[in-house]
């Protein structure tokens, strides 16, 4: 098992190098001179420009700049934003908000998605199944900003159950509505995935054998049908959790959530290269870690994966 984890971490290294290199290269290739841009309309003093270039290693070749940057990352130094604030400080401020939102959304979509999917799968073709399929189709078809605005209007303005935007400090009760919006699309996917998986598993031979042993549905459904059906669902949830953790730009924007996605969006608009690169680098790291954790979780669900190396 430790060998397996070690190998997974080794595999993550080239992925990390490759993605950061690509991101750095893309930011490097963006048009415009960031130092000149700093001065705005003023004519820059060549001596100051040269000094700044040397300070940010912009006078070095691209590959050297990249290596210097990479070295900084390994020392925990992600550089400064244009406002002079360390990128790590911005991350420390925004990431917990996004993480809270992500976990909340994940809980909603996992619980309701699997529950509705399971009932649909067990009652294939019945009224519940048909209506849940219809609802999930509507949710999948709608762009998330439509769901967000409708949710904001209905629950925030009309019913007044929730605040339309997230207040300072992003308290949990303010995050419920954005989390539900964020969860809605994945919820629909999970319903469909669970349903299909449950229908498939229910028809398998070992389920019939379980019944032939004299087990009741109350035991067969959770123990023999649900657990086996969850394997593809977990794959989806895992990728989705990764996506949620690195920030939902649109939803965070609409509900004014001070999270990673919102901040990154602002940084891209303002052309803050170092902030963008650092944010994306951290996102890649998070994504890799989540992926490794999920692969380990698979082993818990399916012993065949646990023992095959």
């Amino acid at each position: 098992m430790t060998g397996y984890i070690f190998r997974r971490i080794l595999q993550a290294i080239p992925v990390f190098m490759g993605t950061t290199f690509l991101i750095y290269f893309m930011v490097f290739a963006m048009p415009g001179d960031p130092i000149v841009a700093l001065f705005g309309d003023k004519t820059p003093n060549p001596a100051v420009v040269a000094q700044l270039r040397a300070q940010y290693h912009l006078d070095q070749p691209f590959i050297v700049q990249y290596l210097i940057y990479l070295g900084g990352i390994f020392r925990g130094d992600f550089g400064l934003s244009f406002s002079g604030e360390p990128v790590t400080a911005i991350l420390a401020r925004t990431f917990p908000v996004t993480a809270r939102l992500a976990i909340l959304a994940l809980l909603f979509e996992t619980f309701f998605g699997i529950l509705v999917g399971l009932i649909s799968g067990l009652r294939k073709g019945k009224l519940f199944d048909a209506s849940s399929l219809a609802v999930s189709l509507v949710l999948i078809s709608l762009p998330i900003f439509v769901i967000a605005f409708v949710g904001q209007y209905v629950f925030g303005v009309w019913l007044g159950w929730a605040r339309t935007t997230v207040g300072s400090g992003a308290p949990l009760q303010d995050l419920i509505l954005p989390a539900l919006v964020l969860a809605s699309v994945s919820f629909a996917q999970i319903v469909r995935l669970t349903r299909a998986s449950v229908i498939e598993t229910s028809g398998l031979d070992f389920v019939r054998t379980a019944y032939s042993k004299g087990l009741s549905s109350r035991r067969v459904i959770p123990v023999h049908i649900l657990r086996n059906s969850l394997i593809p669902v977990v794959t989806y949830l895992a990728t989705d959790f990764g996506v949620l953790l690195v920030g939902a730009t649109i939803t965070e924007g609409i509900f004014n959530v001070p999270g990673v996605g919102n901040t990154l969006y602002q940084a891209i608009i303002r052309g803050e290269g170092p902030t963008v690169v650092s944010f994306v680098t951290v996102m890649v790291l998070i994504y890799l870690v989540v992926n490794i954790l999920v692969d380990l979780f698979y082993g818990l669900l399916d012993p065949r994966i646990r023992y095959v190396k």
Partner: protein
Amino acid sequence: MSVPLSTSAAVKPLLEIKNLQVGFQTQNGLVPAVNGIDITLMPGQTLAIVGESGSGKSTTAHAIINLLPGSGRITGGEVLFEGRDLTQLNEKQLEEVRGRMIGFVPQDPMANLNPVWSIGFQVEEAIRANGIATGKEVKQHAIRVLKEAGLADADKRLRQFPHQFSGGMRQRVLIGMGLSSRPKLLIADEPTSALDVTVQRVILDHLATLTREIGTAVLFITHDLGLAAERAEQLVVMYKGKVVESGPSREILENPMHPYTQRLVAAAPSLASRRIQSSQKNLTDLGYSAPRAAEGLDLVEAAAARAGKQAATPVAGGPAIKVDGLTKVYRIRGAKRDARDFKAVDDVSFTVERGTTMALVGESGSGKSTVAKLLLRLEDASEGTITIGGRDTATLRGRALLDLRRTMQPVFQDPYGSLDPLRNIGNTIAEPLQVHRVGDRASRRARVDELLDQVALPSALATRYPNELSGGQRQRVAIARALALKPEIVILDEAVSALDVLVQAQILRLLADLQAELGLTYLFITHDLAVVRVIADHVCVMQRGKIVESSTVDKVFDNPQQDYTRELLNAIPGANLKLGV
């Protein structure tokens, strides 16, 4: 048609099925699968239901414990178990009957254990659900039933998972599970058809001993008449959802009344090889039970004809296949990172003369299919030479390799998996012609018609798709495709193993006819020695990658030299049956 199986009035029947009807709801309405059958089983007795796939035998088994798949439901009749009609019970009452009173051993050991739970968990939950034991005793009881079922090291393997068990071991687990509550009736639905013959024999012997000790009656479901007759006192023959014949096994075997049963007796390879053996002195005596209704299907006659023809035609030209010192080594990455070598094929040598059939016989894992792959150059040999038609194949590349493939075509086991579902039959058969750029569109079409005719399929089938065909028809298509390039050699890798006996007999006959007509050389790979008797001239018996015995068919059957060969022969179901020959 119902025949009372026992007239003893003192003992009440354990299971009485009266006029049972089962149907499946489809878009076109209710399709009947079982049409009013009657079966009576006395306590402690063993009764076998025999029939081909689609005869309704498994549906009957599932209907008894009300576990019909999908849209299936009982539409009429009674299933009286100890006088209680099981069809009238609610779910809760049924749960009490299942497992505790009626055990069930399913067909495919690979698919019938939940892969995500340990063996111990799955046995223990059955014991707990039926209230056989509580607390710590559950585990003790689980170990006991598994040991009874033949898992000697059950206490050590309880925490292992199904994928760590072989097929035979899994079937033992399922048998242990089925008998864990000491049920009065055990339904065994083709319990060993997925296993090697020798394993099958050991497991069925064990099952018989165990049920006799416990006093459990067995309802045994199988497609193999020989197996049924060997294992059960009573037989019920089912055909298209109806019971066509029932009675004591011996009587049915010796004097089959119904034409369908007669055909089954004639077509069962296990019985055929037995009949050949017992009538070696005088082949003409065979007229006794070769039923007139089944003309053209009798395997005994086919084998006799084959023996006569083989003796008459001398072999012309050099050998078609010559294999010398063939070895294939696979590198296995072990659990502890130690690479070790596994010899799948170990110093195998044999020669196949032109126009003859060589059978390569062995159990799963014996290396017989690897030999086929090496011959076809789908894999390269580690050592040794393969000479096809006088040419060493190891060095062939590109064009020459393509030419080799042209002279040598395979037919595989699974008629469902070996045809592309998105291609119609005509295109499937014409594909090799296209690949090898033979002829133009019109001549290819003509060739497809000719091939369909050769394998006795109507030419209208060319525009149909595989899902519209039966298993036997698909295998005919696969054979037609193999013959498209007019090969000299056909490698048949378990080509008839997945087919029902009657279909199997037809395909074997087709293969024999094609061989006579086209002068084909067959390499017939199988685990079933019974089939070998009727199709092959020479036999190589393989065990763990080595050829342990190699001789003519008659010598191997009449005078086996190796213990392993004897074991395989004894494992043919029905081998020890007394037939009224």
